[in-house]
């Protein structure tokens, strides 16, 4: 009897200790990020980035491949040579069903042929080859178009998921950004991006990518590439703005995204995207 009582008391005591220990572990303060964006009340402290949701639209049927966007992007964001936040690819499908894709220097100087000086003085009507006049025979270009490319600012981002230090993230208004003060330059995200839209900055040694010109759009301007586009092939806007042009276009045009099979849910939509575009 006595022994039994003693046993029970010991058990309760040790159980109490264990419970206290357990409580201590549980009592470690909840990490701050458990407080989700939608838990935050929109009010005086929170800036206007909850009022917007940005979206990008590229009309490939209007792109003339002049490269103005690539040049503007480099000036606006100081992108180093041979690295690109946005670039333009040229697709040409020839008579024999070959798809020729090229993007000389990302389209920085347009797509002018190298022997332009010669072309300017020669009266030859149709210089051969898909790069120029159109080619002959089975090299005749039957279909061609330019496809500007950039970060797709996916909803289901493969790149932010792999970041070991949470330097890359999706902002509340839908822009995928890189916090350069936290980035350790491991380049996991460069590998993870199926669109090849990230690079490691050769001097800063951190990941860099298109930010949809975050410093412009948050001041009511358009991204640099959109402002310089001479034909209006690049469009940008706010989904939360009921009267925006982009909302009307998204509602009425036939849209596609790059690599839809990957389920990355890009928020960079395309009009007139051919099936040959990868």
């Amino acid at each position, binding site marked *: 009897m006595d022994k039994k009582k*003693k046993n029970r008391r010991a058990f309760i005591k040790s159980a109490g200790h264990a419970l206290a*220990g357990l409580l201590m572990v549980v009592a470690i303060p909840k990490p701050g990020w458990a407080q989700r964006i939608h838990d935050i009340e929109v009010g005086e402290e929170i800036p206007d980035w909850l009022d917007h949701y940005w979206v990008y639209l590229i009309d490939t049927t209007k792109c003339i491949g002049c490269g103005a966007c690539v*040049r503007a992007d480099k*000036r606006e964001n100081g992108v180093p040579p041979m690295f690109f936040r946005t670039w333009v690819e*040229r697709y040409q499908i020839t008579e024999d069903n070959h798809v020729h894709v090229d993007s000389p220097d990302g389209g920085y100087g347009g797509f002018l042929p190298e022997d332009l000086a010669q072309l300017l003085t020669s009266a030859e*009507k149709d210089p051969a080859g898909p790069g120029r006049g159109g080619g002959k025979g089975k090299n005749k270009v039957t279909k061609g178009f330019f496809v500007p490319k950039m970060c797709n600012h996916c909803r289901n981002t493969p790149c932010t998921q792999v970041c070991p230090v949470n330097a890359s*993230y999706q902002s509340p208004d839908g822009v995928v950004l890189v916090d350069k003060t936290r980035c350790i330059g491991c380049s996991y995200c460069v590998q993870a991006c199926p669109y090849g839209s990230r690079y490691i900055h050769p001097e800063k040694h951190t990941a860099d990518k298109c930010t949809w010109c975050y410093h412009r759009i948050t001041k009511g301007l358009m991204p640099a590439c959109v402002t310089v586009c001479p034909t209006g092939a690049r469009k940008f806007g706010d989904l939360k703005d009921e009267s925006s042009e982009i909302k009307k276009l998204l509602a009425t045009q036939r849209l596609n995204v790059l690599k839809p099979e990957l389920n990355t849910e890009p928020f960079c939509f395309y009009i007139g995207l051919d099936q040959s575009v990868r």
Partner: protein
Amino acid sequence: MRTPKHLKRALWIIALLFVAGNAVRLLAVPESFGQFGEFRGAHLSEERERDPVHRGSEVCGECHDERLEEKNNGAHGPIPCENCHFQPYAGDETHPEAHPEISQSPDRSQRACLTCHQYFPARPQAFPQLANFPEHIATNGPKLKKDDVGAHTLCVHCHNPHDPKIDLGQNG
């Protein structure tokens, strides 16, 4: 009964882990982390801080207002000045010293125009483009009814870059 030694030790270890874990958290997690999500909240404001470089045609129009109006009414209306004058305006009041690059930058070569106007099969066919430059001069030069057509080798000899469409009815 005394608390068994091993239990005490376990409790100490747990307490130590608690303190050490929180200390590491305090040191490693930046201040505004978690404000809006799983990232450093302050970065949002840092990212938007930078000044825009491209100011658009209106900035140039403050001084070159006639040129701006001319351009906006022409076929090149949607093209910002910066596209062809290359250097965006820094926003400096002192001028033209402030924009020597701009004043020198307009590329008058055919190359500058042809980045947009050279014929490519990949270009939308509705866009006005030149398939053959010598032919362009040969067929269009005489229409201008100028004497020295042979000397007109640059596009800007015949076309005003700010209002490029040539109205033959008026010119000819």
